């Protein structure tokens, strides 16, 4: 029997251990859903806020000197004797940011939360690369943010995988908090797009301030709350007796005696925590999804996220 919260699964060392070939082929048919329309950098497959050269009609506007005469609607000119230009929707690429919480609390659980997040990020990033989105990966903890930016196209999959394999969790007492990390992350991020935030959101000082920094940038934020089975049901995973619980991030010890009453209280606290996170996200126009690391990755991507409209 494994010790409580210790992963029995070895950490992935190869890219195919992060994302298997079977799942990869299924992911190629999926795409990230964005409820907002963002301006892109280059021509792409997403509808842009800009008017462009696509075949989709967008609007009319009066002709101004210098406009391209190829877009003048001559039928209107014949009827109204005025020059109007036909405007078409522009299709550009989407900016997909995937931010992974690498704090010490993520390197815990069986299956390990950080490992699960790396796999999940690999899958989501692959979906972005397949759909010619600009994929950026970010790792953040109390010590700061480090990123892999501007990946585009399937051929960047290996580069993305290597970066994720190298992603390590921070030391136990790395200092700083979620809000500080989100502030740093928000200031360093360029452009707007879809931002998927992978974290357990277990922050003693609260997560509201951090979410406020993210929400202020105008990104479409998806919060994936990753929880280990030991966090969801401690008693069923071997927590019992008289214990001194030590926070892996050094936020202090708690002495407990595992009793049904305590477990009920913990469960209630966890539900409250998740509910509060969900409410904060909703208030800021963010979407929230709780993911358990014991759940199969394909089921999360193909079923849970599709049902919630995060992936199509």
């Amino acid at each position, binding site marked *: 029997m494994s010790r409580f*919260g210790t992963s029995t699964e070895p950490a992935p060392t190869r890219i195919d251990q992060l994302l298997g070939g079977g799942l990869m082929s299924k992911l190629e048919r999926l795409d990230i859903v964005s409820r907002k329309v963002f301006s892109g950098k280059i021509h792409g497959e997403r509808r842009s806020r800009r008017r462009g050269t696509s075949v989709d009609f967008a609007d009319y506007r009066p002709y101004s000197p210098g406009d391209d005469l190829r877009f003048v609607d001559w039928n209107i000119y014949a009827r109204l004797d005025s020059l109007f230009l036909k405007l078409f929707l522009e299709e550009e690429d989407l900016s997909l940011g995937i931010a992974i919480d690498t704090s010490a609390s993520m390197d815990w659980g069986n299956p390990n*939360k950080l490992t699960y997040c790396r796999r999940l990020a690999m899958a989501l990033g692959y979906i972005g690369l397949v759909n010619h989105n600009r994929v950026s990966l970010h790792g953040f903890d109390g010590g700061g943010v480090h990123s892999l930016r501007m990946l585009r196209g399937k051929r960047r999959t290996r580069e993305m995988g290597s970066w994720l394999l190298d992603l390590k969790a921070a030391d136990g007492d790395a200092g700083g908090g979620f809000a500080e990390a989100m502030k740093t992350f928000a200031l360093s991020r360029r452009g707007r797009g879809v931002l998927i935030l992978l974290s357990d959101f*277990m922050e003693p000082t609260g997560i509201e301030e951090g979410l406020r920094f993210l929400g202020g940038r105008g990104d479409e934020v998806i919060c994936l709350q990753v929880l280990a089975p030991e966090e969801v049901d401690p008693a069923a995973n071997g*927590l019992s007796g*008289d214990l001194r619980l030590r926070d892996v991030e050094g936020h202090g010890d708690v002495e*407990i*005696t595992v009793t049904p*009453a305590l477990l009920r209280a913990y469960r209630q606290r966890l539900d409250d925590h998740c509910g509060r996170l969900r409410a904060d996200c909703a208030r800021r126009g963010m979407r929230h999804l709780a993911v358990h690391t014991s759940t199969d990755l394909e089921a999360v991507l193909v079923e849970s996220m599709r049902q919630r409209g995060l992936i199509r």
Partner: protein
Amino acid sequence: MMWLTPWTGFILAACTVPLLLLLYFLKLRRSTQVVSSTLLWLSSTEDLHANAPFQRLRRNILLLLQLLALLMLVLAVMQPRIEGAGGSGGRTILLIDRSASMQVRDVDGDTRLDAALEAASAEIDRLHAGGLFGGGNEETMIIAFAETAEIVQPFTGSRQQLQDALAGISPSHGRSLIEDALNLARVYSTNPNPELVDRPIAEAASLVLFSDGRIQDLEGLVLRGESLVFQRVGEGDVDNVSVAHVAAERPYDRPSFVEVFVGLANWNSSVVVADVQLSVDGIARRVEEVELPAATRDPASGRLEPGRRNLTFTPFQQDRDAVIEVALLREDALAVDDAAAMVVPPPRQLRVGLVTPKRRLVRRIMEGLSLQRLDVMTPEAYEAVSDAGRVGNWDVLVFDAVAPRAMPTVPSVFLGRTPPTDQVRAYGEAEGQVVLGGSGDHPVLRYVDVDPIYVDRARQVQGSENAEVVLEGSSGPLMLTFVHQGREHVFTTFDPIAESNWPYQRGLGVFLFNAVEYLGHHGDAVTRTQLSPGGALVAHLPADATDLVLTTPSGEVFDLSQQDPARVSWGPVELSGLHELRYTRSGSGEAVSWYESVRLPQVESDANAAQEVVLGMQRIESTDAGAVRYRPLWPWAIGMCLVILLIEWWIYNRKIGSW
């Protein structure tokens, strides 16, 4: 279940249980567990701590086990006991009183001895019950005691052996003397072999005494570490009237008549009227109604003094020997003291030889006795007869201020000259002696006033261990009796005629009469001191006696043919009553019976069972035999406590992960 010290346990529990709980509050040993975040746990425990301060104690298996162990200790301190079988795992010695008073029938129609044996049997069953509550290493020894003690069964763990040994215990009519039994118990409780290092030098044994408590020698005895349980058998108030003594005499002037004297004792607290029957050879001759006064208790000593009454049957003619029995025609609790018997031999006149250097006083006295024949001779004439081997023609010899060259083979009286024997050794002379004391109950001094005797000069002698000082003077013995080659002799260390004022007193004649009668009729029932149980039966039979067979009052027969007829001994005597020693004289072929009357010790007639026995300063209250016995449970509680502690230790190590 009973608790011996419940309050001690309650106090201990009141002190220790809160202390244990307090220690748990103060210092609960916890194992450390790393978690991703204590955020939720912290808020959860804060809520619970606010609502339930004892929450941390709930479902704490270690605390539960420790409380359980503590509870077991408290239970052990409270000394629980359950009714039932099983011993303490040690050595137990059963002391069974089989004295005469144990013959009282006051236990549901059975004798006290029967009840004691039954109770002892139940005790053996309890000690060797086996099973969960049975002792596995019980060892029990059985000692039966009356006048003497004997080991009926040495230490053994076999219940069957013990029960068989119990069945072999027979009643005795002796006194109840426990000192020998205690000494035997101590000897067998001691490990004499220092090589047996696994056993202590002295193992204190548990003694269980089955008795009515009428034990005569308790004074001066103490327990030396042994624990004694007194299981009383019998009641404290029994109805008993006894024949205290019986004696018979042939009147001096009418030797063909027999006069019987009876002493009766009433041990009841009320006056008793009883019929006393005199039987001769089994035929009732007389019946006298006697009123016996009530017994009284001496307020100083607390002893019961029986109401006594002496009865004399008028002389009746009895030319030949006869068995005379006196019986109380009244049923009471103790039957063995309701009758007494004795044998009166046929009248016999003595043949006496007087060896004297022509002195007249002793001769005159002897001539006044009623003798068959008196032969007076000089020392020289005696030596000639002695050399010729014809000394056996006399029953008694009297040496008047002379000493023979060799000890005579017939009982003799030596007056003033030391007999040639190693039984007395003369080492000097003392002058001017007065009598300090005399053995007044000795037959030779019966009716003799010895106080006025003044001895001018006497031999100073040292008697052997077989010699008995009958008269003690201010400078040494004045008169002794001793036995030489099976014959008893009397020796006065002074010459009564020349060296004392005795000739001027009446006592000299009476003494000579007593001495001749005593020595001449020694062995006759009429004059012999009656034997008590525990003593040895000794008979001096003719040299040609063969085929010696002894029959006890209970009818048991013992063949004593291998013994020397000159000194036949058998003992210890167990029962009171007439013991018949039959033999055949090889010369004439005549079958002869010799009787010994054994009397019941009078103290055994006081048969009221005692409530307690006192050994030294220790009073041991009686427990009725068959009363409920309890088995202590505290060892089990201690054992349970240890087991629980072991389990607690194992769980503790599992929890902290050292295993």
